[in-house]
């Protein structure tokens, strides 16, 4: 009868443990399991497939961060939580684009998730700022920063990769790059 979640959905426990253990498989199952629910909601409320993808991914990020932060309690079903978060995010987006928001067609129960969504919005702001700063940083700085801070390469590796004569040069380059990134990051004022 219910065609909402046709694919097999992992249990809530599986998901929480999987995410805490950085299991890609759990993330995959979670993603595939609940996407139809959000797609249905967005499609029936003035959105398209791309909106659904964006909103759903944001929703999963909220859940992911909440689980990772350690203060996640299963006070409701994951399904309800995801639905409520995505719903909240979508309603905000609709309001931002001053699209029609009356008559929301609901498909699931809704719980209060305002705090989580607000927190996420701040983080999302930071993410976008960083993304934009890195884009403006240019090469080779972007790759050096990413290799050192994100991919955790050693100064020695970077030295070899970029052909610096010694690690001191590489260190100086990295320092300059980071200074510029900081400058860009704090300058960017997102609308």
């Amino acid at each position, binding site marked *: 009868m219910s065609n909402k979640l046709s694919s097999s959905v992992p249990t809530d426990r599986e998901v929480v443990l999987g995410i805490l253990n950085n299991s890609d498989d759990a*993330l995959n199952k979670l993603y595939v399991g609940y996407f139809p629910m959000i797609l249905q909601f967005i499609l*029936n409320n003035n959105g398209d497939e791309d909106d659904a993808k964006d909103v759903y*991914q944001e929703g*999963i990020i909220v859940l992911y961060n909440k689980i990772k932060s350690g203060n996640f309690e299963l006070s409701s079903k994951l399904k309800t939580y995801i639905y409520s978060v995505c719903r909240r995010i979508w309603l905000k987006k609709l309001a931002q684009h001053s699209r029609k928001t009356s008559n929301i067609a609901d498909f699931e129960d809704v719980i209060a998730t305002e705090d989580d969504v607000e927190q996420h919005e701040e983080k999302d702001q930071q993410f976008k700022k960083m993304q934009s700063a890195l884009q403006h940083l240019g090469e080779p700085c972007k790759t050096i920063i990413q290799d050192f801070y*994100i991919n955790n390469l050693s100064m020695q590796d970077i030295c070899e990769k970029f052909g610096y004569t010694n690690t001191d040069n590489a260190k100086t380059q990295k320092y300059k790059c980071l200074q510029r990134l900081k400058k860009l990051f704090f300058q960017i004022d997102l609308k």
Partner: protein
Amino acid sequence: MRNEIELEGIIEDYLNGKLTEAETKAFEQLRLNDPSVDHKVVAHKVFLESLRDYAVTLDLKGKMDEAHGHVDVDTLSRKFRPHPSFVVNIWRKNKAALGVAASFILLTMAMLYSIQQNTEQIGSVEQVKRDLTSLKSSQSSLIRKINSTANASIPKNERPANYGGTGFALTANGYILTNLHVIEGAESITVVDNSGEPYKVRVIRTDSQYDLAILKITDNRFKGLSNLPYRLKRNTIGMGEEVYTLGFPKDDAVYGRGYVSSKTGYNGDTTQYQVSIPVNPGNSGGPLLDQQGNIIGVISAKQNQVDGATFAVKSKYIQEALNSIPNDSLGNKVAFSKRNSLQGLSKPKQIEKIKDYVFMIKVYK
């Protein structure tokens, strides 16, 4: 510049916990003494954290994009896209409620099925009986087969009547309405009034569509009736309306009481009501009256295998049948009585008045 780079290196090592214990102690002392160093540590920490958050989120997005690739978005969105049809939208929005309703219906059907299962044997017994009496319809028409042995009460006939039914007066001058299946194939028909007086009748008109037949008393002994006490109800009546009938399942009139259980008859036949009323073979052709004594239909059949499902042709079609009779064949009086002298009377009083207008019909084949 050199110092700055050195300092940043130390700060990073400090934040990553790569300094030795002594170095950590010394550095913390430096932070306490020099607020500008302390500020740098904090700022660097915050910045590195947001850089790490960025990395984590980017990684997560990448994984989700990969997962998204496994989702068949087209098929799903075709399924969930708001349907232009109102009905489908209703279905989607009220799926849960409809689901409950559907399961309820399923359950009911399962129960009905089991009842059918139980009555299957009885049903087949009735089938045999129908074969014998050569009634082919799946509804058992309510013609009473009169046993020749039980026929002692009508000594006037040389031959015993084979079938019996009920009819009622349409006009005061001897037109009688009954079911077509009661008189079909009859060699001769006799009606018997409440006092047991038999009269010869002639078939004036038959209407196979509504299973109605109009007879006319041709006997010279017939003196005519006084004005009809009942009236034909033109509009249909609602479910739950209490109704009653008078018929001849035996040689004396029998009163039966019930209610309209559905506005349609067998298999959704809109020309009939379904009435929950106990009837037996012999009731066919009997009038169905409401509480005010208006005629609302003609008892015509009951469904075997189903308890209390009797079908009655709606009064509207009686009027139609009446209207379709050419005026001359009815004399000049086709009009049904417009007055209803039964209104407000108690049930026994009503029946007392009606019984003179209800006839037993005896059919010889």
